[in-house]
């Protein structure tokens, strides 16, 4: 599996309240959530994001509330992957559970600039920066999580094992 798109850069501690403000949480519609994604931090996000684009951020991405609406909104915006120096743990679980690709790489998060064209090979965990002609290695998922993703996410994996 591969992803390709332009980098949209944010800083440290991007919390789930700015990813999707609580005033929109009464809905569960991915499209409706995507329409308000990041709006308190970056009013132009929804206008500039293109399918395949990649969010690149600093430490503790997705901190705060456990709302699964946050990774749902990001995915429905067309974002193909979030690369960060580190993730808040509930967001990390949620992203995996709903099928939003996430990668941890301090080096990539440091080096990638806004607008860089990126290509990610999820099988090898290698992030290629086509603009800068650079490569970065991301932390691979632990085997247990990789298995879960391969089975189609958490619900599919437990449904398979329910027997």
């Amino acid at each position, binding site marked *: 599996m591969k992803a390709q798109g332009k980098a949209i850069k944010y800083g440290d501690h991007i919390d789930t*309240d700015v990813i999707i403000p609580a005033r929109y949480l009464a809905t569960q519609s991915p499209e409706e959530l995507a329409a308000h994604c990041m709006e*308190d931090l970056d009013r132009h996000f929804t206008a500039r994001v293109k399918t395949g684009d990649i969010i690149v951020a600093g430490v*503790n991405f997705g901190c705060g509330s456990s709302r699964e*609406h946050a990774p749902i909104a990001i995915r429905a915006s067309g974002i193909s992957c979030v690369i960060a120096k580190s993730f808040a743990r509930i967001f990390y679980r*949620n992203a995996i559970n709903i099928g939003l690709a996430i990668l941890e790489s301090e080096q990539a998060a440091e080096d990638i600039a806004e607008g860089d064209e990126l290509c990610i090979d999820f099988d090898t965990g290698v992030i290629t920066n086509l603009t800068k002609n650079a490569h970065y290695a991301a932390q691979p998922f632990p085997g247990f999580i990789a298995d879960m993703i391969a089975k189609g996410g958490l619900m599919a994996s437990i449904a398979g094992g329910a027997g």
Partner: protein
Amino acid sequence: MAMTMTQKILAAHAGLPEVRAGQLIKARLDLVLGNDITAPVAIDAFETAGFDRVTDGARIALVMDHFVPNKDIKAAEGCKKCRGFARRFGLTHFYDVGEMGVEHALIPEKGLIAPGEAAIGADSHSCTYGALGAFSTGVGSTDMAAAMATGETWFKVPAAIRVNLTGKKGRWVSGKDVILHLIGLIGVDGALYQSLEFSGWGLSDLTMSDRLTIANMAIEAGAKNGIFAVDDITRDYMRDHRDREWTAYAADPDAEYARVIDLDLSEIPCTVSWPHLPENARPAVEGAEIAIDQVVIGSCTNGNIADMAAAAEILEGRKIKKGLRGIVIPATPKIYMECIARGYTKIFMEAGCIVSTPTCGPCLGGYMGILAAGERAVSTTNRNFVGRMGHAESEVYLASPAVAAASAITGHISHPREIMEEGAGL
């Protein structure tokens, strides 16, 4: 191998003699919790996956608390979905308007969680129950859905930071000041993926209300869970709230910790966290220049009866500043009625505050106290992120009920002694 308190509880729930930090385990759950925002998403996931039964309807709690009484049609539809699910699967613990309270105040009050138990909640502040010596952590809706179906979930066993408490708190200092101060020391990702384990002789100076507040905000340091050693204060609390058996687990004396933090309670000042991160902790006395428009006293962090008592002590016989909006929200019906019985409600209303029925509303910018652009609130809630209580250009200052009450009277961030101790000055 020596284990931390959290590791012991997880080992017991995984049916293993021991677990190590970093190990992936499947653990049996004593409680699975969801609310009116997260449960509808979980119910969709549950139904989409084709499950037609829950493992144990007595171990699932659904609490309608964020947007109820329903703030709009969408919120009403979400609650309706939860109500239907609770009825279909015969859930024992479904709390709707009239019985509902802010979930993390309601669950311990109802005795649904006890020391040594393991719980997950589709709400990040589910770490609150660590105050009782339980392992409890926040997850998302899909994890909740899976746990309703299977009665278990996967965890990566966390390492722990031991917070060694000594000393006695100052006159106006509470659990809220302790946790804001600690988050200020270690940062909002200072305990990322780890447990915060509280022990030491200073524990005896922390009431259960203090502990609930501290454990509640462990997530604001990035922690997987916060957990308190079980002592007489825990046992007293459980005697009043629970009729079932429970097991206390203690950390091994030679357990390994990623870090040990010594915290002398006597050195912690009344603390306020400035926008827009809980780690921006500063002594309350530095806030004299910060004029405010609104004060909120309540939430899963500070909506208990002790919090109401702290606010009432300061507001009694006084008026909040003209033009400031004071909103008090007792967290459960029981606390609400106790406020009436003790005369706190009269004190709050005579001071110029309004007393709301239980809701999470303003804390997360849902309803019942939204801020306009440029407005500032002092709030006893748990997060001060950009736009948390309303407009992206509004500001939230996190504080204890005592500081919030004092600030409501003066109209700026105030140390309680500014009101309560004559001649204290600024």
